[in-house]
């Protein structure tokens, strides 16, 4: 037992190191660079509307792409859950496989398709459906496409997990009692799969808000995802206190509510 305890303490310290240190750290960094600075960088956040706009833009982008991901992912998850058990493993592997391959490279692969002289435009031009190439690259549409494409597996997996566990006899009961299949689906399958919907949405939404790679590779110069603003603040302007302030504000505004929500819902499940 003592052996276990020493081990436990030894790793606990190494694990605990990240967030509390950062919390203290941003403050100490500000203290080091004079106390007034810590307030100015935060005040800067509120006075310069760039940051407010960036937050709103990031939230909107993440929200919309999460919604579309849900609409696309639900049918896929449903189809896998209804598939014969022997096929499920293989189908799941097919969904997970892109997740294992490089994220950066998948975003890059997308570029070859939606680029102005990419596959999509070449194809549409050849077919005569359009006369000018569609401009998708470097627009907000490209960011949406990128996020949806990259995070679709994150949406499908939790949805599948809840849909698979769903008690099918409930739906049979509903159809036996005379409800048409679409009504049984809407009134039984959808409400019962809500935990999966919420889990999947959070898994897509949170990384999407802070996404950096996709907006910087696919998006135009005008888009203001918060991740990109932070990156520029860090590497472009070398204004570390402001970047730290953005990070803290971001955490408080986004991760805080979600953590509280999860805590509360966890309590409800236990109680």
């Amino acid at each position: 037992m003592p052996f276990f305890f020493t081990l436990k303490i030894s790793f606990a310290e190494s694990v605990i190191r990240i967030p509390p240190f950062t919390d203290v750290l941003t403050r100490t960094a500000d203290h080091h660079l004079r106390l007034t600075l810590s307030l100015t960088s935060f005040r800067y956040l509120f006075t310069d509307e760039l940051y407010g706009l960036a937050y709103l833009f990031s939230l909107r982008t993440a929200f919309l792409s999460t919604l579309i991901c849900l609409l696309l992912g639900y049918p896929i998850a449903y189809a896998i859950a209804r598939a014969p058990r022997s096929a499920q493993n293989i189908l799941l592997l097919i969904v997970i496989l892109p997740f294992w391959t490089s994220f950066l490279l998948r975003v890059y692969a997308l570029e070859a398709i939606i680029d102005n002289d990419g596959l999509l435009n070449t194809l549409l031009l050849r077919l005569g459906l359009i006369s000018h190439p569609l401009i998708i690259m470097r627009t907000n549409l490209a960011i949406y496409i990128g996020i949806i494409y990259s995070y679709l597996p994150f949406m499908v997996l939790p949805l599948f997990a809840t849909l698979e566990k769903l008690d099918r006899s409930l739906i049979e009961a509903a159809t036996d009692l005379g409800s048409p299949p679409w009504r049984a689906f809407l009134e039984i399958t959808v409400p019962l799969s809500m935990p999966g919907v919420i889990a999947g949405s959070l898994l897509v939404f949170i990384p999407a808000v802070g996404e950096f790679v996709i907006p910087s590779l696919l998006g135009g110069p005008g888009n203001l995802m918060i991740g990109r603003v932070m990156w520029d603040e860090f590497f472009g302007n070398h204004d570390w206190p402001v970047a730290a302030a953005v990070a803290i504000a971001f955490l408080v505004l986004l991760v805080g509510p979600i953590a509280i929500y999860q805590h509360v819902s966890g309590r409800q499940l236990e109680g």
Partner: protein
Amino acid sequence: MEERYPPLLVSVLCIGFAVLYLPILVLIAYSFNASPLVSVWGGLSTAWYVKLVHNRELLAAALLSLEVAVTASTVAVVLGTLAAIALVRFARFRGRLLLTGMVTAPLVMPEVITGTTQLLLFVSLLQTFSWPHRGFLTIVLAHITFCIAYVTVTVQSRLQGADRSLEEAAQDLGAGPARAFLEITLPLISPAIVSSWLLSFTLSLDDLVISSFVTGPGATTLPMLIYSKVKLGVSPDINALASLIIGIVGSCVVLAGWLMRRTEQRRELETRMAEQSEESSLGAAPAALRPPRAEARALRFPS
């Protein structure tokens, strides 16, 4: 009982998978394109792959990425497994909630924030202790911290499902806690350990944002190099590189999945055989009919 699988669902699956895989397939196809332009098909060629092998900068970056990934995932697996054991086996200890929070925090935090905070941490450490210098070491440390989260969650769920009574039985039969852990618990959770190592490895190999924040002069990982090239647009030698990486990783994952499934199946088979042999030994079956495995078990755990 058996119902027909609706054709609508089949088409949904086909479309979904097409969407997921089309860009990757296109990328691989282009990597064999003789023409450097995306819009022009110049015939089959492996010229870009040949060019790749001669690119020193690229090879160095790839090697660095591999080193980082192997070190980080190995350390993360050890620490993460210990954290998982602590969380599952010790119901309450001081700072349990804190530890849970700390362990899962990197899972939900956007990468940019993890990167920033870690860089600030390393910088202030450097100021106070003049250690660590930014470069290989800080990248490895940063990767370890986010990999631990994934390892802990994976191992934790496996450990919760594992049968605690087996370990207790071993201890009742006189095995010390260390031995019971090594011979019973560790093999039980080994699939989770293996898969979390693989997960950490790929995550580390793939990470761009966190590495970019914490790196120092002279340490450029493969994703960082790719990013700086890709920023300038589609380029054919990156196509070749990407296809290569995707091919290697993809086949590794499929192979690992297949191997793990086979071991699981074999284990199930063995348990079933062992159970059968125990039943038959009750009926005083000849010892020669018993599978050797069951014999060994009987020797090791005399009833």
